[in-house]
């Protein structure tokens, strides 16, 4: 496998301005040194609490926000600062599905017009109507939907239209930002299955952002866990949930209630106390140390780097207790 997208140390800082002269007094470090790769045909999940910067990562990959630092490489080419024509062709190859299918579809356009617009704007060469029908079929919608307006459809159907639009130009990478979070459970499962099917048949790569760990786990090959603008753990999806290494990942998994009442993972002291600190003044050293129950004195001053740990394949974590954690889980096995 080769890397389709390579992200290296990207940073997105938003300035905070104050006073008459709008002087920059501070900056919010929404994304602070994030690196990962997405292989061809791979689905990478990105999870974390709200405000951890996962959506900002997505927006920077879609070139909707400017990077403060770092590089994005797509298919061997640096795309961090491309403009006009190059940007247009980049956006043809990388598309997005958003959370709320109601606000991301134009209420005054029919499904046919919504899909047709994408194709005409990008000068699609073949017959547009055939392509529209093909897209609808691909997403499990009947032909009659061409004539319908968004308000005439249910949430699940609208999200299918959102997916059809993302697929219109045969992209190579699709970025899904909370694509199934707004749907009812029974419909959510339908859309999750559809995304998996599309991935297998079309060989697409995915960056899947979500806060529902079990859904992300189900869809993705690898998962990256973010906390306060940094990635704290990354690894194989199934592996990572069975055997989380970073204290934050552990706590996050413990917080998800299982639907099996007998499976009491519930360990109340494992619950994270407090809330995510403000990104305006992130804690020194390891950003997680204020909520971590394993913290040692060093955590307050020394910033941990992403390092390989000896659990599973290609697992990396950013924690000063790295070695100890590796040893502990080896003993368990």
């Amino acid at each position: 496998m080769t890397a389709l997208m390579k992200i290296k140390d990207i940073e997105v800082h938003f300035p905070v301005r104050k006073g008459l002269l709008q002087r920059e007094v501070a900056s919010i470090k929404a994304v602070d040194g994030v690196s990962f790769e997405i292989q061809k045909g791979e689905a990478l999940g990105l999870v974390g609490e709200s405000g951890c910067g996962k959506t900002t990562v997505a927006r920077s990959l879609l070139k909707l926000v400017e990077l403060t630092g770092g590089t994005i490489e797509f298919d061997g080419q640096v795309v961090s600062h491309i403009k006009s024509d190059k940007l247009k062709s980049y956006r043809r190859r990388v598309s997005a599905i958003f959370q709320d299918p109601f606000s991301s579809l134009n209420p005054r356009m029919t499904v046919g017009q919504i899909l047709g617009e994408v194709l005409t704007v990008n000068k699609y060469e073949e017959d547009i109507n055939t392509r529209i029908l093909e897209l609808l079929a691909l997403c499990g919608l009947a032909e009659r939907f061409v004539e319908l307006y968004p308000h005439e459809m249910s949430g699940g159907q609208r999200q299918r239209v959102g997916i059809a639009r993302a697929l219109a130009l045969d992209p190579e990478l699709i970025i899904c930002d909370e694509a199934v979070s707004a749907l009812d459970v029974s419909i959510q499962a339908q859309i999750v299955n559809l995304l998996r099917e599309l991935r297998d048949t079309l060989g697409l790569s995915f960056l899947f952002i979500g806060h529902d760990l079990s859904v992300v786990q189900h869809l993705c090959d690898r998962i990256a866990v973010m906390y306060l603008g940094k990635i704290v753990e990354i690894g194989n999806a199934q592996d990572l949930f069975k055997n989380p290494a970073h204290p934050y990942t552990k706590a996050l998994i413990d917080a998800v209630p299982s639907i099996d009442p007998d499976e009491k993972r519930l360990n109340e002291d494992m619950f994270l106390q407090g809330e995510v600190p403000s990104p305006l003044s992130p804690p020194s050293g390891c950003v997680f140390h204020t909520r971590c129950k394993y913290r040692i004195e060093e955590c307050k001053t020394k910033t941990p780097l992403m390092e390989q740990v000896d659990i599973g394949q290609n697992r990396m974590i950013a924690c000063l207790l790295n070695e100890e954690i590796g040893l502990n889980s080896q003993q368990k096995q």
Partner: protein
Amino acid sequence: MLEVKNLAISLTSKNVEVPLVDDVSFKVKNGEMLAIVGESGSGKSITSLAIMGLLKSPLFVSAGEIIFNGIDFTKLSPEEIRQFRGKKISMVFQEPMTSLNPVKTIGSQIEETIIQNLGLTKQQAKNCCKELLSDVGVADPEQRMRLYPHHFSGGMRQRVMIAIAIAANPELIIADEPTTALDVTIQAQILSLLSELCKKRGMAMLLITHNLGIVARYADKVSVMYGGNLVEQGTPRSIYRNAKHPYTAGLIRSVPKLDSDKSMPLEPISGEPADPSKLISGCKFHPRCPEYRPICEKQRPEFKDEVACHFRLDKDFERQIS
């Protein structure tokens, strides 16, 4: 404690009565947590509003009884129900930002409730407020009382809402999706707090949710609603192990589990949730049901022995024949 009997809620539009909730019955005892589960449009939220006496025209209770400590709410005037609201029954809503007043301090909002409902003096209310805030796990209550809602995060605001809800020592708390807008880590904190308060103060709680994981972890009993009807009732364990209604079984199968086998696709329920604006004859679930037979369309199944289904899954009718 609270007993809802054959409750029906309708909506009048152009002189036509459209039934939204029909024949819903359940009981909640002291110190118990009952969860009502359902998808959007299942009628779970308007059921809770009906109990609080908060239905507004064109919605109204068209049949049934809501009995709270022996008093039937459906026979009381709005003014009489108001005497119970906030004192004996209180509510926690989903959006903690929209339910707090942005231009008043946290302290004054809690004190207002206490003075209104318990008739204490200002100074007593202040002390009471401090106690309440520390009860719901807000550190440094004296400082925090002087702050405004926008100073608080989502989880903290929800704690404040809970403090207001328990201020008058109510006997029943209705929580309508109290953690849907919050992160999982905060969700766990808030729900543990609620269930702890429930046990400690012997309050009954009605939890409205769509999340089966929350039900499994916190509820004592569950009622599953679909299309305005009650379809199944039981304990979280009985429902998870032996779902009797095809809808409940389908719902459980469509939730991915953290340790599930990824090579298998999920098993969703086909079709779309019942649209309350369209009338469905017979069993509301029949258009999506894998057990469908012609009778399901003609006759509405009676709610009997914890389930409303002609072909309940725990009995082997002539399932083999079909």
